Structures are given as structure tokens and as C-alpha cells.
């Protein structure tokens, strides 16, 4: 069941890639948030209640609700509803994403041999998600999709931390979350600023 | 006694040699020509003449002839003259010999550049070009002489008559030829430079002293003759041994000088002067000759050891 969720988590990203509209990517992020929460619930049996609550807040509230809203705002104010402009053609980027997705399994396989005490599939999928996020950043022209790539990558990192991390002190997780959130806000600020002044002509920033 | 004789020779020979050569030349051409002591009487005449100086010239023109004369005389100290004895010698004096000749040349160059005319500069630049090769080959020759006779004194260096080995004949001949060419160059004799042409564009040495007159010109001519005499003696003393009989030595010397004068005269009558453009190749030949000399020496040394 858990593995299903993980696969789903990674597939969602791929599906988002199939739909070439920016707004669909935002839905991807929402779904990822929800799935992350479910994964965590299934994963951490017997984790302290505080951390469960915290993660619930973090994932559901911030990642699944607040950030998509912010992104929508950006989308609204930068009038870039439709095409998420690729640098490559969408066909190739889909191909690459698929390859990344598959590579996740290989990573899982390799990791399984090397390390002990981690769930290999989760690890692999997390890595492939991170790679997908990076790929989004690299292959898109619009800044909004860069931000989304960043968010997806962060989700991947979160999944990775689920897979690897012993219990991190709550204080640290809070700090990390705050940084992440402020970072997103800053991105929003600058995206709007750059868009309104029309600094970014050819997506070369 | 020998010293006195030598000093007298140094003073007299240079005054008469050029005239002698001219006389013999004209005889060979079938002319009567000027009397044999012409150059001497020229010297006297020049001494009496009034001294003319160029307006654009400076103290150099007053100064330069004297160093030329003096350095010529000092160079003459080290050269073996009659009986193969020099007036004065000391170890490593060949360096001084060469450098004093160079010094006289430098002063001549300065004098030439002093009067702002273009002809003298032209002559000077030619002179420099020949000096360049001459100095090098002169030292090459000296080096090989040192290697032959393990001596560093000019007088003993150049005496080769005691060499008995058969291949030394070639060596001595080569040496004499090279010295001969040096003489022609230094004193600007015929095949290299024509002392009594009247086309300044082709002159080398004479053009440099165009603007000098009376005493100065006399000095230059004297210095020129002196060089001629010195090189003659260098040639002579390679083959004629040192003797203590003064008379014998004197006779030997005079005869040899006469022979050389004859040779020069013959050459000057037979050959026209070489084209300026070919002259540097000619110089190079002497350099190569000197190199051959050196290799010969080294070979001989190898044979000896």
C-alpha cells in the first residue's frame, strides 16, 4: 500500500508533465502534498504525536494548500496561464521525465544492495522526484515553472528525509519549514517584480 | 740599440711606404709617376698648411686626430719589428694591440660623424661593417697563434719558424695570407678600397677624412702608413727568426718589406677594386680562413698530445 502511494507520488509528477499547462502543475503540487501526508501516516507508525501533528500541518497546510494558492496568485498576476514554455519540445521532455522516473527504480535497486535500514523504493522515487524537479527548472523558460520545479524538488527532499531520517529535532524542522516558506514568498516577490518591470525577456535569468 | 733602431723605423717607414708603393705602381703601369719620397714631402707640406675646420664641426675635429695617432703609436709598441724584437711587451699585450687599433677607429668614426655631411657618415658606416668582421677574425687568428705557441706575448706568439711539422707549411701560408688581407683592409689598400679614387660614393676610409686638413690629415696619413708597416712586420716576423745581429736583421726586414711592397703594388695594378656589395663576402672569406686556421691548430694539438 505504502509503495503504491510512493509510486503514485512520483507518477503524479509525470502526469503533470503530460498536461502542458502551468495550472495543471499546480494541481500536481497539491496532489503531492496530500500523498506525502498519507505516506507519512503509513510510514511513521509509533512516531511521537507532536511530530505527526507538525508534519500534518506542514504538509497539508503549507505544501498542499498555501503554496498552491501563492502560486496561483503569481499565475494570475503574471498572465502566464497557458503554455509552460519548454526549451525542448514537449515530446522529448516527456521522454526525459519518463527516463528519470524509470531511473528511480534502478537507483532503488542499487541502493538496496548498498545500504541497510532504508526503504529502497522510497529512496529511489525521492531521488527521481528531485531529479524531475531539477529537470523542470532546467527545461522551462517561465520563472513560475522554475518555482514549481523548486517546490517539487523540495517535496522530493521531504520524501527522502522520510525515507532516511531518524527523528529530527522539532526545532530544526520548524526552522527548515520557515526558511522554505519565506523562500517561496521571496520568489513570489521577485517574480512579480521582474515580471512587472519586464526585465525577463528571453527567460535568461 | 735595437730599441733606437725600432723607434726610428716606426717613425720613418710609415712616411715612405705609401709613396714607394705609388712609385712602383706607376712604374708597373709604365708611367714615371711621382718621386718615391712623395708621401714624405706631402707630410711636410701638410704640416705647414693652414688648418681648416668645418663650421658645423665641434671640438671632436680638433681632438680626434691625436688619439688616432697616439693609439697607433702605442699599438706599435707591441709589434715585433726589426730582428723580431718589439719595443715593449708584456703578457696578454695582443688584446691591447687589437683594442688600440679599435680605439683609433672609433675616434675616426666620431670625426667622420662630426662634420654634418652625408658622405662621411656613409664612409663611417662602411668602415664599421668591415671592422665588425675584422676584429672577430683578428682575435680568431690570435687565439690560434696562442694555441700553437703556448705564449701570450705578441712577439713570441707570432714566431712560427720553429715549427717543424710538415703541415705547418700550409698553416704559415694561410696565416700570412690572412694577415695580408688584414693589412689591405686596415690600410684601405686597393682591392678593398681605392685610396686615390675621386668618387666619394665608393670610398671607405678616405671619405671619412674628407674634412680634415693640414696637421690632422698628416696625422691620419701617418697613422695609416704606420698600420701598414705594423701589419707588414706581423707578416714578416712569422717567418724570419729573431737575431741579435742588428745589420742582418735590418737587411732581412728591409728586403721583406720591399717584397711586400712589390706584392701590394702588383696586386693594385692587376686588380680593380671589388664592388662594395661583394665586399662583405670577401670579409667573410677571411673569417672562414681564420676558422680553418683554428681547426688546423686544434687538429695539430690533437696530433701532438
Amino acid at each position, binding site marked *: 500500500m505504502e509503495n503504491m502511494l510512493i509510486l503514485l507520488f512520483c507518477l503524479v509528477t509525470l502526469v503533470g508533465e503530460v498536461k502542458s499547462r502551468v495550472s495543471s502543475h499546480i494541481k500536481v503540487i497539491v496532489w503531492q502534498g496530500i500523498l506525502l501526508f498519507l505516506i507519512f501516516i503509513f510510514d511513521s507508525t509509533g512516531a511521537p504525536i507532536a511530530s505527526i501533528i507538525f508534519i500534518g500541518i506542514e504538509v497539508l497546510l503549507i505544501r498542499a494548500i498555501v503554496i498552491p494558492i501563492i502560486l496561483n496568485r503569481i499565475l494570475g498576476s503574471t498572465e502566464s496561464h497557458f503554455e509552460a514554455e519548454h526549451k525542448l519540445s514537449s515530446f522529448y521532455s516527456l521522454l526525459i521525465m519518463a527516463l528519470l522516473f524509470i531511473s528511480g527504480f534502478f537507483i532503488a535497486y*542499487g541502493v538496496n544492495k*548498498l545500504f541497510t535500514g532504508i526503504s529502497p523504493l522510497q529512496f529511489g522515487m525521492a531521488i527521481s522526484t528531485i*531529479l524531475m524537479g531539477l529537470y523542470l*527548472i*532546467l527545461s522551462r523558460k517561465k520563472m513560475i515553472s*522554475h518555482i514549481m520545479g523548486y517546490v517539487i524538488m523540495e517535496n522530493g527532499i521531504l520524501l527522502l528525509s522520510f525515507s532516511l531520517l531518524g527523528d529530527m529535532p522539532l526545532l530544526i524542522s520548524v526552522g527548515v519549514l520557515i526558511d522554505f516558506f519565506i523562500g517561496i514568498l521571496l520568489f513570489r516577490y521577485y517574480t512579480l517584480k521582474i515580471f512587472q518591470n519586464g526585465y525577463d525577456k528571453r527567460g*535568461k535569468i | 740599440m735595437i730599441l733606437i733602431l725600432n723607434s726610428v723605423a716606426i717613425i720613418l717607414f710609415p712616411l715612405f711606404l705609401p709613396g714607394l708603393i705609388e712609385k712602383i705602381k706607376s712604374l708597373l703601369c709604365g708611367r714615371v709617376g711621382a718621386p718615391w719620397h712623395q708621401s714624405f714631402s706631402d707630410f711636410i707640406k701638410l704640416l705647414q698648411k*693652414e*688648418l*681648416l675646420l*668645418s*663650421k*658645423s664641426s*665641434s*671640438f*671632436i675635429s*680638433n*681632438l680626434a686626430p*691625436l*688619439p688616432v695617432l*697616439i*693609439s697607433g703609436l702605442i699599438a706599435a709598441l707591441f709589434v715585433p719589428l726589426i730582428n723580431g724584437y718589439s719595443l715593449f711587451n708584456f*703578457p*696578454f*699585450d695582443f688584446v*691591447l694591440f*687589437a*683594442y*688600440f687599433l679599435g*680605439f683609433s*677607429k*672609433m675616434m675616426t668614426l*666620431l670625426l667622420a*660623424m662630426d662634420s*654634418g*655631411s*652625408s*658622405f*662621411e*657618415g656613409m664612409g*663611417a*658606416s*662602411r668602415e*664599421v*661593417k668591415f*671592422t*665588425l668582421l675584422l*676584429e672577430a677574425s683578428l*682575435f*680568431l687568428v690570435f*687565439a690560434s697563434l*696562442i*694555441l700553437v705557441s703556448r705564449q*701570450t706575448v705578441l712577439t713570441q706568439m707570432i714566431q712560427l719558424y720553429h715549427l717543424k711539422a710538415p703541415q705547418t707549411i700550409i698553416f704559415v701560408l694561410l696565416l700570412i695570407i690572412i694577415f695580408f688581407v688584414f693589412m689591405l683592409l686596415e690600410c684601405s689598400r686597393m682591392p678593398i678600397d681605392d685610396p686615390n679614387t675621386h668618387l*666619394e660614393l665608393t670610398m671607405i676610409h678616405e671619405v671619412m677624412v*674628407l674634412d680634415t686638413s693640414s*696637421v690632422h690629415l698628416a696625422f691620419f696619413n701617418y697613422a695609416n702608413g704606420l698600420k701598414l708597416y705594423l701589419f707588414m712586420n706581423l707578416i714578416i716576423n712569422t717567418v724570419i727568426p729573431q737575431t741579435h745581429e742588428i745589420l742582418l736583421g735590418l737587411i732581412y726586414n728591409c728586403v721583406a718589406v720591399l717584397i711586400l711592397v712589390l706584392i701590394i703594388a702588383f696586386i693594385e695594378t692587376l686588380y680593380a677594386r671589388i664592388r662594395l656589395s661583394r665586399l*662583405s663576402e670577401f670579409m667573410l672569406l677571411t673569417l672562414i680562413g681564420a676558422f680553418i686556421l683554428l681547426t688546423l691548430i*686544434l687538429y695539430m694539438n*690533437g696530433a701532438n698530445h
Partner: protein
Amino acid sequence: MSVLVITLLLLIFLPLTFFFFKNDGRIVLFSSLSTTILLVAVIVESTSVFLNGHSVTYTIHSYGLLGNIVFKLTPLGYFFIMFVAILSLIAMLFSHLYLQHYKTLKRVKYHLFLLQSLVACMLMLPLASNVLVFLLIWEGMSITSFFLLYFDFENIKVQEGAKIYFIFMHIGFFILVVAFSLLTFWCGSSDFTAYSNFFAHATLFKSSLLFLLFFIGFGTKAGIFPLYVWLPKAHSIAPGNVSSIMSGIMIKMGLYGILMFLVIIPSYSLALIAIVMMCAILTILIGAFLALNFSDMKAILASSSVENMGVVALSLSLYMLGAHTQNTLIMSLSFVIILYHCISHGILKLSLFSTLGYVTQKYHTHSIEDLGGIVHTGKINSLLFLISVISMSAMPILNLFVSEFLLFIVCTLLMLNFTLPTTILAVFLMVFLSFIGTIILTAMVKLYATLFLGNKRFNTEASLHSKILTIFLSILILSQLYLALFSYQVVSFLLKFFSFYPGAENSNILTEIGYPLKVVSSLSAIFIGLLVLLYIGFFFLKKRRCVETWACGSQNLTLNQRYTGESFTLAITNLIKLGTKNKSQSDISRSLFSKRNHLTLIKSDQIYGVYRYIYRFIKKISYFVLWMESKNSQQNILYLLIIVIILTVWIFKGAVL
């Protein structure tokens, strides 16, 4: 010793008071006076210290990165301190004269400050007895001299030349740093006193490598072959007093650095000797031909400095050859040649550069072709200059000939005493030296004749007549005459310095060369005496009349008929093309029907061209690297990704396989 150090520090820090003065002549006067007094004090103190025992150490304990500051007075150091002090004492006189022209300028303060610091650094360098202190003072010397070049910094050529000087100084400095750290690593101590002991037991490879590094590193300052390129450029742009001090005194400090190690290294490998000799020969050759080709008067002199440093390097290599064959005679002789040549060249370069500096100040041009007939504006100074020129071209009656003569003696000894290879080498050197002698003679005649002789080719009323310059030059000429006429005494004095070092025992040099030296000096004396007598005699006996120059009948000679320096040397430069690359540049293309076509001949050093070529190549590479560089965030992240993948593969390679 402490007094000496304090005096030197005073010499550096006294000029700081200048910044409180107003801009009038008093600063120049004050600085000249103070420097003179301090220099005299330095001479006295160092002599007293030296006589009280020649190895006095003076340590300043400091708890900084620099560590303890150790000063030590070695015999060689004493020689160089005296050399620098006395020569700078003389140079200050000219500097005073030269700066009168600018005394109201604001930058004179800085100039004086830097000048005094330079002198102080040069005086301190021989005292330094610790790597860090030595490097500190060395770099202080470089940097002060570098900023001294900037006196006329509006001029673009000055900036270019100074830039070249800067970078070459740094290359040399890095080489020195590497060499010193190698030495410190191998020897285990950064104190100079430990090195003689180290070299006594070091392997031949180590000592040779170190010496080579030091030779190149110090050679950069001394202007020896591979890195001499800065010298003509820097000297031609420097103000007169600076260029005279740099060429007369500063480049000898590089020589000091080399000597410092030369005397303590017992033996050298033949390969090293060959390399050093090659460098020396190339230096001489290039220097001579540059001097022949250049038409910038200061560049000519600078090139001749290069040539002379090459001669010094040649005697260095002969010393090494002597050390290699355990022949103390040749060692000591070469050592004497080095010191003697160093002194006489310093004096000569002071006089030559100062006079030409004065000329450039008066006539506002560097090219000799623009000038001519200066002799008519100042007879005495040009006569004195003539004497220096004659001496510079190593003519028998003056001082530079003595070292030339000694070199010939060394060659002859090599020829007589050694095996076939050395014989051939010696013969080659002899011929080479005479050849170069002629080249230098030509260059000097060209310089003097084009600048001073002939008709006046300029219409300014400037004149060379200056009492101070006359005094200055006559002092220098008297010292030259002393060196020439009392060469025996000088040589025996210099031998004392050698006697402090290993290999000095049983060197019967004076018995070998004493007599010839005496003869040479006496002959010079006779020559001068005769000259003076005859000159005076004829001056009074003969009455003179001035007429037009008889240029083969062509009356009213124009200035342009004068034979230029360029055409004077053409006879040789057509025969042997070496040293410079000539490029003629005409401005005819500027307008379609241009009235007059102005041709300018641009001459550039060939070796410098090589360096430029290398630089261009490096620049091409840099363009490629800049193209590779990440310009925007996406590219940057791409790099991140690539590196991550590479590293992951690298890490897991070992684990999986």
C-alpha cells in the same frame, strides 16, 4: 649596528614629514640634504661595524607573522652597502638638479618619499639575513621603483611600461618565493647563516636546481636573458634620476642576490654551467643588438645595461667553471671581474643616464633622430659625456676595458690550461667578446654622433650647459679614471672580499695578472698625458679657420643631408638581422590626396614579441573558459546537476564494482 639600522629606518620615514611642507623648492633641497647626511652616516657606521668584526648580527624580536627580524653584515653585504651608499650619494646630486624643474609639482613629495625608500631598501637588502625579511625588503624595493616610474603618469606609454615592469617583477618574485621555500624545506631553516653549511653537504642536483631558480629569479631584476624584457621599456619611460638609479644601482641588487649563493655553493653540475653560460651569451647578444637597433636614447642605454649584465653573468659562469674544476685562479679572477664590472658599470650608467635624462628634460624628446648638434650648446658636458661613451664602449684607456681585459685573460688561461672542449669554448668566447665589443662601439658612436655631433637639428634655445651637471659628471669621470689608472690597487682590494669565502686560499692571481694590469694602467696614463700635451700644443701653435663643410662641392648643407643614426647602423643591420622587429607605419592612407606622408619606424624587441604571443594564446584560452562559464541560474543549476552525477558515479564506482 643598531645605529645603522636606525639610520636606515630614518631614511625611510623622514620623508613622511614632507607631507606637512608646502609645495615649494624647499622640499627638494631638504630631502637632498637629509639623504646626503644620512648616507654619509650609513657609510661611516657600516665601515666601523665591518672593521670591528665582519659578522655582526642584530636581531629585532617581533611577535608577528614576520617572526624575528635578523640583520647581519657579511663581507659581500658590506661591499654592496658601500656600493649603493656611495653611488646614491652621487646620484642624489643629479636628482636634486633634475627635480628643480618640477619642484612646484604636487607629486614631488611622493617622488622624494619613494626615492628615499628605494635607496633605503637597497641599503637594507644586503643586511637582511632571514628569508622573510629579505623578501620583504626585496619586494619593497620593487614596489617603490615601480611607483617611481609613474612620475609622468598622464603619459600612456608610461603606464604600459610600468605595467610590464610590474608583471615581470612579480614573476621574478614568485620564482624567488618558490626557490626560497624549496631551500627552506630542504635546509630546514630560514636563516641565511645556515645555508652555507647546507650547501656544503647538499647533493649536486639540489644545489644546481636552487641556483638555477635563484639565477632566473634574481636575474629578472638584474636583466638577464629570459626575463630581461622589462628593462628597456621601464628605463625609457622612467624620469631621468630614477632611470639612472635603477640602471646604475638597483639592477646590481639582483646581482647581489645571485652572488650571495654563488659564493657558498661549493660545486656546480656541468649542465647548470652550460645553461647559465647560454643565458649569459644570449643576454650579451640581444642586449648589444638592441642597443644597436633602438632609436630611443634611453632604450639604447638600457640595452647596453642588459649587455653588461650579460658580461657579468658570463663571468659568473666562468666562476662556476672554475669551481667545477677546482681552479682557484679562475674563480678568484672571475669574482674580481664581477665586482669590478659591477662598480664601473654602475658609475658609467649613472653618468650616461643622468646626462640623457637631462637632455630629455630639456629637449622633450626620446628619439635620437630628432636631435643633433647638442655639443654646440654645452661643450664641457658633452666632452664629459664623450668620455663616458668611450669608456662604455670598453676602450683601452678607461675603466670598463679593465674588466674586458681580465675576461680576455681568463679566456686565454682557459685556452692554455684545459681540455679540448674548454679550449673551443674559450676561443669562442674570445671571438664573441671582440665581436660584441665592435657592436657596442657602433651603438655608442651612433648614440653620441647622432645626438651631439653635426649641426643643430632643433630650434629650441635649450642648452646642456649646467654647472651642477658638470660637477656631477666630473666626479664620476674622476672615479672612472681612478678605477682605470689604479686598477691594480682596486683589484687587490676587491680580492680581499673574495678571501672571506671558500676556495680563496692559495690563489696566486696577483702574481699572474699584477704586471699586465700595472702596464695597462700606466699605458693609459701615458696616453692621457700625451693627449693633453699634444692637444694643448696644437691648440696654441696652429691657427684655425672655419669654413663650410666640404660635402663634395655641394654648398649650403641642409640639416637633412646629415647621416642619421638609423642609416649609420644600416650597414650592420642589413648584414645581421637580430634583436628587433621593425615595422614602418605611414599615415598616407589617412586622406585620399594627402599632402605629406609621414613615415614612422616602429621597433619592437623580438623576445618581447614572443612573450606577447604567449599572452595572446593564453587570452584565447580565457575566452573559451569564459564561454564555458555559467551565465544564468539555469546553467548554474545544470552544472550542479552534472557535478552531482559525476561525484555520485565516482563515489559508488568503488562500492558497486
